[in-house]
C-alpha cells in the first residue's frame, strides 16, 4: 500500500504526458485538432444576410446555401493563414469540385477584400461582407480561416478550424462532401 502511494505521482505524470504526446502527434500528423468543438454541427446554418463587398453586385445570405453541398469559408485580407490556403481554394474552384461561399470578415477598409481577391483570384461563388462579425459570431467563429461544410438542407456538417490543406481535403473534407451528395 505504501509503495503504491509513491507510484501515484509517476502515474499522473505518465497519463498527462501521454495525452500531451498524443495531441502533439495528431498536430504533426497534419490533423487539425479541434480546440473548440463546434456546437453547431448537425444544426441549421444560422440565418444571416450579408451585403456585398465593394465592387461586387451580390452579397450572400443563408438562403443561398440551400439545394447543394457547399463550403462556407471565412476569410480576411489581413489573415495570413487565409493567404496560405487560398491557392488550394482556387484549385477547388478550377476543378469545379464544390461551390465555395465566402464571408469577408472584419476588413478595416472596404476595398481591402476586393483588392486582395483581385490580386490572388476569387474562388467564391458569392461573397458577403462581415465588418462587424455578425455572421462570424453567428457561426461561433474564433479566428480565420474557418470553413463549414453545409449540406443540401442547409445543415452544418463539419467545421474546419484553420486552413484547408491538401491533407485535410483528401482525408476528411472531400470524402464527407461525396458522402453528403448521396443523401
Amino acid at each position, binding site marked *: 500500500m*505504501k509503495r503504491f*502511494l509513491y507510484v*501515484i505521482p509517476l502515474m499522473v505524470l505518465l497519463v498527462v504526458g501521454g495525452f500531451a504526446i498524443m495531441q502533439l502527434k495528431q498536430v504533426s500528423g497534419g490533423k487539425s485538432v479541434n480546440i*473548440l*468543438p*463546434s*456546437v*453547431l454541427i448537425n444544426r441549421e446554418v*444560422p440565418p444571416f444576410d450579408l451585403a456585398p463587398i465593394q465592387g461586387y453586385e451580390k452579397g450572400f445570405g443563408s438562403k443561398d446555401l440551400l439545394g447543394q453541398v457547399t463550403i462556407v469559408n471565412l476569410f480576411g485580407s489581413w489573415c495570413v493563414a487565409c493567404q496560405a490556403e487560398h491557392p488550394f481554394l482556387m484549385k477547388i474552384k478550377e476543378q469545379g469540385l464544390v461551390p465555395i461561399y465566402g464571408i469577408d470578415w*472584419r476588413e478595416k477598409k472596404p476595398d481591402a477584400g476586393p483588392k486582395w481577391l483581385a490580386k490572388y483570384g476569387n474562388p467564391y461563388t458569392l461573397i458577403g461582407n462581415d465588418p*462587424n*462579425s*455578425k455572421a*462570424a*459570431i*453567428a*457561426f*461561433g467563429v*474564433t*479566428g480565420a480561416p474557418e470553413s463549414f461544410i453545409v449540406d443540401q438542407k442547409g445543415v452544418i456538417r463539419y467545421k474546419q478550424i484553420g486552413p484547408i490543406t491538401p491533407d485535410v481535403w483528401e482525408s476528411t473534407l472531400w470524402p464527407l462532401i461525396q458522402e453528403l451528395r448521396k443523401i
Partner: protein
Amino acid sequence: MIRILTVALLLAVFAPLSAQAVEPNEILRDPALEARAREVGKELRCVVCQNQSIDDSNAELAGDMRVLVRERITAGDSNKEVLDYMVDRYGDYVLLNPPFKAATLVLWIGPAAIAVLGLFWVAMMFRRRKSMDGGSEMSTSGPQNAPLSDDERRRLDELLKEDSA
C-alpha cells in the same frame, strides 16, 4: 510618507489591470441597460484570448461581441437570453462560469478530488512517520518512554485508588 508612496505606486501599477476595455462609443445611453450589458459581459469569455471576459479584452472580436450583447439587450432580451444566444453558438466554453453538468463534471470535481487525494496521501505519510518515530524512541529509552521507577509506580497506584474510591 514612504508608506503612502508605496501604496500610490502599487495602485499605479495594478490599477490598469482592472481597467475595462469597453469603448466609449459602445456604451448605451440608458444606464440601466448598460449596467445589464456589463453584467452579461463579465460572464462571457473573450473566445480569442481565453482568460479574459469580453469586457476586459481589447480584442476586436470581443468588441463585436460587446456590441452584439448591447444590441440584444436593447432589443428586449433578458440577460439569460443573451447568454443562451452566445452558448448556442460557442458552447459552454464561452461562459467564464461554466454550468455544472455531466460534461463539466471533471472540471468542477477534479480539483477537489485531487486535493482530497493529496490530503489522504499526506495523512498516510504522517501516520507512517509517527509510527516509525514511536518505534525508534521505545528502543532508545527517552525520558517519556522510560519505565517507571518504584517511587513513581507507588504514587500512580495511590492516585488510581483515590480515583476509584
